[in-house]
């Protein structure tokens, strides 16, 4: 009994140490991952126009409408997590339309929402049409299927940087 208790405590201690010492332990795995990823993905880990497929739009850098739902969800997640990589790229996304207001600031935001393959989770990418358009006249109904084509841009609000698609092409499908 004593021996098992000490073994359990040892294991827990090891688990905690691993979690916190992630940095030190991560040097070799980090190098390993770098080797695999850069070998495969090339010097630039971002897709460029040369990876155009038969059904993708050659005028955009990133055509999410030509990808399957599994990839779309993951790429959008990637955009959310590391948006600096995609800043300035032209992209085309389809999903459904949604809008929310911030009551405190009095501002309204527009999103194109993309669900995952199992349709149980979804992510929204913010987009903005130019100032000449107004809500609700120039915007579609909530939950309508839309396609947004534009450039990933960013703005600052209350000290936070937010990325959005600056677009003048909003198609209702």
């Amino acid at each position, binding site marked *: 009994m004593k021996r098992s208790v000490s073994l359990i405590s040892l*294991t827990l201690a090891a688990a905690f140490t691993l979690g916190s010492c992630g940095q030190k332990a991560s040097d070799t*795995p980090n190098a390993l991952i770098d080797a695999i990823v850069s070998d*495969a993905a090339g010097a630039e880990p971002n897709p460029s126009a040369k*990876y155009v497929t*038969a059904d993708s739009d050659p005028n955009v850098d990133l055509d999410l409408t030509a990808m399957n739902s599994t990839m779309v969800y*993951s790429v959008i997640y*990637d955009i959310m997590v590391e948006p600096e990589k995609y800043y300035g790229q032209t992209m085309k996304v389809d999903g459904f339309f949604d809008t929310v207001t911030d009551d405190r600031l009095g501002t309204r935001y527009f999103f194109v929402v993309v669900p995952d*393959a199992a349709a149980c*989770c979804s992510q929204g990418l913010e987009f903005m049409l130019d100032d000449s358009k107004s809500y609700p006249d120039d915007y579609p109904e909530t939950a309508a299927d839309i396609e947004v084509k534009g450039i990933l841009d960013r703005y600052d609000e209350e000290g936070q940087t937010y990325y959005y698609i600056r677009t003048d092409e909003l198609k209702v499908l």
Partner: protein
Amino acid sequence: MADLAAKLQLYFSYPFVWYALIVGLLIALCSSLLGVTLVLKRFSYIGDGLSHVAFGAMAVAGITGLTNNNYVVIPITVISAILLLRTGQNAKINGDAAIAMISVGALAVGYLLMNLFPSSANISGDVCTTLFGSTSILTLKREDVILCIVMSVIVISAFLLFYHKIFAVTFDESFMKAAGVKAGVYNLVIAVITALIIVLAMNLVGSLLISALIIFPALSAMRVFKSFRSVVICSAAVSVFCAGAGIFVSVMFGTPVGSTIVVTDIAVFFIFCIISLFTRRKAL
């Protein structure tokens, strides 16, 4: 065909796809090694039970608001594994009843806690992701991959170091105890390794499908191979192949990752069944 090649190049230029492959293959390898032991000890359903416990632990972790859920999930899962796997032969509650109780209980408690203390806006989404894995393996961060590599190295080394002992204790625990081997300690090692793998594997296939990842490769190997060592090696090979193929197919054709891997495992199992029909006939 050229289009497929172009798609291949495009998709595999994303780092997160490579992260998914690395993690997927490592988890598949680790769970298949353990799978042989667990299936032989008649603990096939433990993957399910422990993953439900991990689910409950995640709900608890959500309440505490820790940055990394694993600090809560791993200890709770490890302790449950030890309790479940050590009830063994002399328990008042038998192995399968114990697993059922703890498994369903944790699921219910976890779901209740998640609803009472929601840590995110989309509860059913979180539940769904945890249960089915969804695309969580394609949304890994680099730290997740590093953690996975470190844990896999620990698991694989432990398995190699204790290989003969794991075999002996799985085949005949009472003989080993009678001979003075500390069978209890090795059962403990197996329990801890199992818990670690299950926490890791929840990222790959989700709670509901973990059992499949543990048992199918082992069962496939056992249909055809005759020695413990060849069964373990084959189980590992099958598991890694199916995980790789499953991830590849799901990335290329847009199917959910977890289910695709399991379906590949099932297909391979049927193939092995058919092969065994021929090899058995030869033996006669």
